[in-house]
């Protein structure tokens, strides 16, 4: 699948080598911190050591005495510019930029030091003398819900409860659960973790006092949305703001929200009239910027004694930290958690969620997943395995018995989605065949007889991506469409601009491939540009696997508009009536005369040199695509593990991922995305967690304590695919970047629990560290 072949024109489905790689392999990438502007100042932030404390006094004297330090900004200083608080992502809450009155979580930003050099700024930050009066922190969401200590005094409602959300049929589900032959009820926790892209977040804010224009070169997954937010918050007209998102060193959802450093740098640049750079440290990245998950889910399934599911109920407590800054579309406070019925045909279902404030960093971002889909997929895939054990069915049989059938698509789920397409039976059967499932079960039986712990785990997830249709999806009112603009030059090369922003996904290649396929042009000669709000059409950016489902569709549609205009020109060149000119095999010809072709390149030249009489010269088009529906990629993943019963160490022996993401634009890139997502899923399953101790100290503040898998631990990945095109996407694509991170954690955990089942161990919460597995084994022995 990964064999690269020479690039060829008209190339959807071709493993074309990436166009963007030339600069990256030669050290000519262009990330935020690589930019420098003459006269640029530097910002360093001061952080609270306490998770909950009153700010008694901030003494700037010593900091201001450091040579090169120009200013120390506090929350009160920002208040003078009406920037002490900014709205959160979906607009339901507000968050402090710098502490005002209180610090609400450890490492919260208290002050910003502006200096002429990076070192002077950090020296100054060390010397800002803050007097705190520590207060009792609320760390556990289940303590928070008692409201004994209030996290947010600033809010009108004197409670830590943020919101209640529910969907489905409560009474019907409760009745079905009560009547079920078999009823499982398991607390499944998806731990707090962090995307930790290798490039930290950063900005250069550059207010030009002469023109009044504010340029923000920043790590942004959504440059247009950020421009609009900056305009709404500051009152600066939107035409006076330019957001440039240059090369991004990984995002994974972490670069969607607005962070304190961005705002303070921008405010400082506006006030001082000079460019200000802020680049966070790794510790700042892990402790202050958007975390993910932290869902505590009680999952109940009812089933007949032979394993046919009858009802699903999930009750979740969500820990949102100190502000409700979860990155979810406005009408979806719990994101797309309703996908929790997964790939299964539940006759009835109900889910509810309550979110709470705690004295922890805010977040709840979509870490390499569509909004809250990873939490939901993990919950249902774990629970189905627990059910399989309870009804004595092989987990593969239980799944095959309960899958939504191919003939049920488009499938309306009990929790409000309409799945577009799929053939779950085919994909799981392919996976079972390919990995040699029957043989593995046989081997496992032999090993069990010898007392060895081998496990096989299955996860057959369904994702909901491509947010989204404007009737449902918006962020602070901005509808979640996306856009593309294509200009074909006289010589038949082109520039393509989109409202998305690649952070490694390879858009410069895949977007060119889509346009090339639609236009019959050479993808090597289609320049793709994203991330500059002065030039790109308005779009909502890249996260939640929305780029291919939404912007990818916009590109195909813009290209088709170009083609329609080109057909006019072709008719002129062919001296044929328009109705007789057709597009086939990547060129125009007169119906019935396939040999007499006019290429798009010829049409492009004519558009500028010999346009049809009474027609508009030039050859370009823009398309804003409002998707009619979400897309529903899915997959069947199988993990094979060995557990060392003496040490608790888990070895992932094999991992097979069969993905169905509809039409594949570039198989090499899709496979690479799957490798990467599986590795992040592996990290979450076995090593990653942001832990706060009982006093509110963050225990995972750097890569010593927050583990990223290296080349040594990372398993070898086996991949394959099935293809069920999306019926409503112009080229049938569904999106894939996040499927492996959504689907794989359950496969790993199911495999380990399968290995431990002879000991009677049913569930251990992630991450499955050696210590946790060993402790569970020891407890089981007693």
């Amino acid at each position, binding site marked *: 699948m*990964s064999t*690269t072949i020479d690039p060829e024109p008209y190339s959807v489905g071709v493993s074309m*080598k*990436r166009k*963007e*790689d*030339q*600069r*990256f*392999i*030669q*050290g*000519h*990438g262009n*990330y935020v*911190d*690589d930019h*420098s502007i003459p006269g640029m100042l530097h910002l360093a932030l001061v952080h609270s050591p306490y998770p909950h404390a009153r700010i008694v006094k901030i003494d700037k004297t010593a900091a201001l005495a450091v040579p090169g330090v120009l200013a120390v900004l506090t929350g009160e200083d920002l208040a003078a510019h009406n920037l002490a608080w900014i709205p959160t992502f979906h607009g339901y809450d507000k968050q402090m930029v710098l502490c005002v009155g209180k610090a609400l979580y450890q490492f919260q930003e208290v002050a910003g030091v502006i200096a002429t050099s*990076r*070192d002077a700024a950090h020296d100054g930050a060390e010397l800002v003398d803050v007097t705190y009066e520590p207060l009792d922190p609320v760390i556990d969401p289940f303590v928070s819900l008692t409201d004994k200590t209030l996290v947010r005094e600033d809010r009108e409602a004197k409670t830590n409860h943020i919101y209640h959300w529910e969907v489905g049929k409560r009474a019907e589900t409760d009745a079905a659960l009560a009547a079920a032959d078999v009823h499982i009820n398991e607390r499944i926790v998806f731990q707090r973790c962090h995307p*930790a*892209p*290798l*490039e*930290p977040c950063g900005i250069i804010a550059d207010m030009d006092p002469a023109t009044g224009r504010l340029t923000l070169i920043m790590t942004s997954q959504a440059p247009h949305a950020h421009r609009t937010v900056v305009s709404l918050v500051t009152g600066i007209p939107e035409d006076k703001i330019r957001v440039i998102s240059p*090369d*991004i*060193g*990984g995002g*994974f959802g972490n670069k969607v929200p607005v962070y304190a450093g961005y705002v303070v740098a921008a405010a400082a640049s506006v006030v001082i009239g000079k460019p200000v750079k802020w680049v966070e*440290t*790794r*510790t700042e990245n892990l402790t202050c910027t958007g975390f993910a998950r932290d869902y505590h889910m009680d999952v109940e399934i009812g089933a007949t004694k032979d394993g046919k599911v009858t009802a699903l109920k999930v009750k979740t407590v969500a820990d949102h930290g100190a502000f409700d800054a979860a990155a979810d579309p406005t009408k979806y406070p719990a994101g797309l958690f309703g996908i929790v019925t997964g790939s299964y045909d539940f006759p009835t279902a109900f889910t509810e969620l309550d979110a709470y404030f705690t004295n922890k960093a805010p977040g709840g971002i979509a870490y390499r997943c569509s909004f809250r889909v990873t939490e939901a997929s993990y919950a249902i895939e774990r629970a189905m395995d627990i059910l399989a054990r309870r009804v004595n069915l092989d987990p593969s049989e239980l799944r095959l018995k309960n899958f939504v059938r191919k003939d049920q698509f488009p499938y309306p789920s009990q929790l409000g989605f309409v799945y577009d397409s799929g053939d779950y039976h085919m994909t799981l059967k392919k996976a079972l065949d390919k990995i040699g499932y029957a043989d593995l079960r046989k081997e496992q039986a032999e090993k069990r007889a010898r007392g060895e712990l081998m496990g096989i785990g299955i996860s057959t997830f369904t994702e909901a991506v491509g947010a989204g249709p404007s009737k449902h999806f918006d962020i602070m009112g901005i509808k979640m469409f996306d856009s593309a603009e294509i200009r074909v030059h006289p010589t038949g090369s082109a520039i393509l601009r989109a409202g998305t922003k690649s*952070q*490694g*996904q*390879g858009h410069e290649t895949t977007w060119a491939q889509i346009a090339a396929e639609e236009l019959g042009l050479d993808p090597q000669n289609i320049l793709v540009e994203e991330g500059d709000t002065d030039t790109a059409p308005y779009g909502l950016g890249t996260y939640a696997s929305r780029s291919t489902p939404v912007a990818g569709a916009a590109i195909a549609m813009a290209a088709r508009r170009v083609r329609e205009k080109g057909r006019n020109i072709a008719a002129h060149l062919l001296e044929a009536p328009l109705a007789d000119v057709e597009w086939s095999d990547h060129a125009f010809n007169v119906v019935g005369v396939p040999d007499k072709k006019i290429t798009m390149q010829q049409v492009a030249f004519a558009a500028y040199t010999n346009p049809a009489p009474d027609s508009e010269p030039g050859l370009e088009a823009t398309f804003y695509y409002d998707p009619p529906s979400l897309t529903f990629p899915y997959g069947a993943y199988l993990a094979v593990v060995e557990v060392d019963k003496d040490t608790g160490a888990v070895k992932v022996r094999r991992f097979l991922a069969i993905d169905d993401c509809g039409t594949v634009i570039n198989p*090499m*890139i899709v*496979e*690479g*995305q799957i*490798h*990467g997502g*599986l*590795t*992040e899923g592996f990290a979450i399953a076995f090593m990653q967690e942001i832990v706060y101790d009982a006093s509110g100290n963050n225990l995972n503040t*750097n*890569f*010593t304590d927050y583990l*990223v898998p*290296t*080349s*040594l631990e*990372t398993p*070898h*990945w086996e991949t394959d695919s099935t293809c069920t095109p999306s019926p409503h996407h112009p080229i049938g694509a569904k999106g894939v970047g996040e499927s492996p991170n959504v689907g794989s954690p359950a496969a790993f955990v199911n495999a380990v629990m399968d290995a431990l089942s002879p000991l009677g161990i049913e569930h251990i919460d992630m991450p499955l560290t050696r210590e946790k597995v060993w402790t569970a084994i020891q407890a089981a022995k007693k």
Partner: protein
Amino acid sequence: MTITVTVNGTKYVRDVEPRTLLAYFLRESLGLTGTHIGCDSSHCGVCVVVLDGERAVKSCNMFAVQADGHEILTVEGLAAGGKLHPLQQAFWDQHGLQCGYCTPGMLMTSYALLGKNSHPSEAEIRDGLSGNLCRCTGYQNIVKAVEQAAATIGAEAAAPVPEPVAS
């Protein structure tokens, strides 16, 4: 303090603060921004450069003054004569990069690795790259890229030297 370092074949004499890390010196004093910074604690390896032609060092873990009198090779110095180094070509061919942020460090670590071991096994490559983190690729294609580069370099070394053309 004044230091003299040779970077990618060019000699530089520069004044530096004693606390300046080599990574910042390369990026900010010399403008060689291909060397990245990602963790501040020597875990991630995006800052790796090659010291004296053979040793991969994490330039965020070394002071610029410690490089005084030494030769440094950075990612910008890998391609020669308008031709990509076999490692660069292999990373491109094998899709060994996605966001590109870890790539310079991966290339320089691999360069030093192949200098010591011209035909490493997969296990040796994985061991050799274990100080370099990547969040995008899952390492599999990086390993393949290093294998390809080793084969290319081996084939080039084995190829007969072309006869000089008489003029």
